[in-house]
């Protein structure tokens, strides 16, 4: 385990009232994993991520990163341990008085890296995040996406074991968000870096996370592989988040209408959960079996582990062929088939 969190709690006292921002969190995060924590604002996720590098002091609980117990460190030991934990922020938090190169060099200065090595490392990082040529620019001359690239380069400067992202894409437009997320996946693969992302956007989870935890009122109310959570959201909050990317499910209304529109029947629902081997499933079926397939309605979304979504189709052909086709999908692929309305 890269990160192991046990019984983590944080209680704030404001005006003599106690607020439990983080409530008994237990979590294990594997090396090289991209772990997402999603929740609405006020759910305690930002406090949670700050507890990991002790920008906030935990009230109780234990955090271990790569066999080192972070929660027991003091003073200099803690500062040295923090060099192994990169962090990126929603508002980038760059020093405007320094150039791009000097911003990235800052954590190296703190770590006492000699000037020549610093220069070399900074250039590597600038190339890695795709900012070549902008070394001498000041943050005020950069776009939001470029600023976050500087933030990422800075966070990676001391070759950390883990990277914490606190709403790292929330201040960016959708297109820039995607390019930053792609960069994070890239870095994750290249460096086998463990990444923890805090977000309120399901899109971020869907796009790059392997596993996800859903937070509400300081607790983790649901966690698991992203695909599982997408397919079988248990809690209300999770369902809401899933519908953020999948759209609001108006299934019942839609099905009724579909049955009315296609009274000849043979309506099926294909449920894709992480199908990767049969990406061209529909055209394959049409080639393999003497049937026609009409797509009626559907919503698909790609995740790190393949496509997730539902497709409503009508299969037109001999009952025998249709049945064989359905059987084939059930046996040969991970797509789940459900009969919506059979032929008369």
């Amino acid at each position, binding site marked *: 385990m890269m990160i192991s969190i046990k019984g983590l709690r944080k209680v704030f006292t404001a005006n003599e009232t106690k607020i439990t921002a983080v409530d008994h969190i237990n979590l294990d995060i594997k090396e090289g994993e991209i772990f997402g924590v999603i929740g609405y604002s006020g759910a305690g996720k930002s406090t949670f991520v700050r507890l990991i*590098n002790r*920008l906030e002091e935990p009230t109780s609980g234990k955090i271990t990163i790569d066999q080192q117990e972070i929660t027991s460190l003091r003073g*200099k030991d803690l*500062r*040295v*341990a*923090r*060099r192994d*934990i990169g*962090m990126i*922020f929603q*508002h980038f*938090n*760059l*020093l*405007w*008085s*320094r150039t791009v190169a000097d911003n990235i060099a*800052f*954590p190296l*200065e*703190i*770590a006492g890296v000699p000037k020549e090595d610093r220069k070399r490392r900074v250039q590597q990082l600038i190339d890695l995040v795709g900012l070549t040529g902008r070394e001498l620019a*000041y*943050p*005020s001359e950069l776009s939001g996406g470029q600023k976050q690239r500087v933030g990422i380069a*800075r966070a990676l400067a*001391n070759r950390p074991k883990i990277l914490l992202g606190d709403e790292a894409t929330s201040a960016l437009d959708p297109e820039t968000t995607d390019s930053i997320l792609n960069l994070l996946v890239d870095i994750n693969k290249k460096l086998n870096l463990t990444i923890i992302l805090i977000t309120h956007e399901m899109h971020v989870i869907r796009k790059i996370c392997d596993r996800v935890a859903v937070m509400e009122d300081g607790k983790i109310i649901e966690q698991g592989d992203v695909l599982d959570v997408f397919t079988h959201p248990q809690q209300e909050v999770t369902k809401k988040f899933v519908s953020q990317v999948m759209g609001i499910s108006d299934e019942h209304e839609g099905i009724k209408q579909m049955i009315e529109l296609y009274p000849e029947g043979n309506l099926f629902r294909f449920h894709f959960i992480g199908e990767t081997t049969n990406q061209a499933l529909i055209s394959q079926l049409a080639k393999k079996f003497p049937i026609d397939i009409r797509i009626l309605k559907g919503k698909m979304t790609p995740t790190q582990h393949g496509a997730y979504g539902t497709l409503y189709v009508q299969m037109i052909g001999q009952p025998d062929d249709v049945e064989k086709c359905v059987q084939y999908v059930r046996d040969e692929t991970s797509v789940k088939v459900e009969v919506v309305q059979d032929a008369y």
Partner: protein
Amino acid sequence: MLTDWFPNLKMEDFWQATYETFYMTILALIGTFIFGILLGLLLYLTMEGGLWENKFINAVVGAVVNIFRAIPFIILILLLFPFTEFLLGTIRGPKAALPALIIGSAPFYGRLVEIALKEVHKGVVEAAQAMGANTWTIIFRVLLPEAMPALISGITVTAIALIGYTAMAGVIGAGGLGNYAYYFGFQRRDFDIVLVSSVAIVIIVFIFQFIGDYFSKKIDKR
């Protein structure tokens, strides 16, 4: 040429007075800058939620700053006579004005420094902490550089107040243009000297303002 227009003006005295004004202003400004930054940092670091949060020290420093800002400068000089004499062995001349000038303006600048530091985005400090920076690194590599334009425009404002203070100090024997205007001009009814001295002070103020604005602008990369 100036002496044709202003018959009572003696160039030698005038230049001596101007030199003394510059001497007092610049030296006092250096002292004010150092002590003001110390005071401002202390106020900022010990405030609630600060890096060295400490209610007691914050209250004490805050009180000292407020008291010295509240005392009118002309009275402060008188109050500090014993201290000045102890420190420098004299209470006359430009040098003797320095302790009062610094003690009079450092608290004012200290407040400006505190405000400037509060303007530094908290997230930047947090980012530095997350990188493993210690408090000294945060002070010298984050807080002061990030606050620099405000620190410079603050010292400019303070410099201009200081020039006014030197004139006041001049009236009670510190030398400089204030001294020249009062003793050689006003008391002898040679008003041309008062006029020339005033114009000279205004020009000095403009020079400081110009230099301050220039650097504040140049350093500001926001």
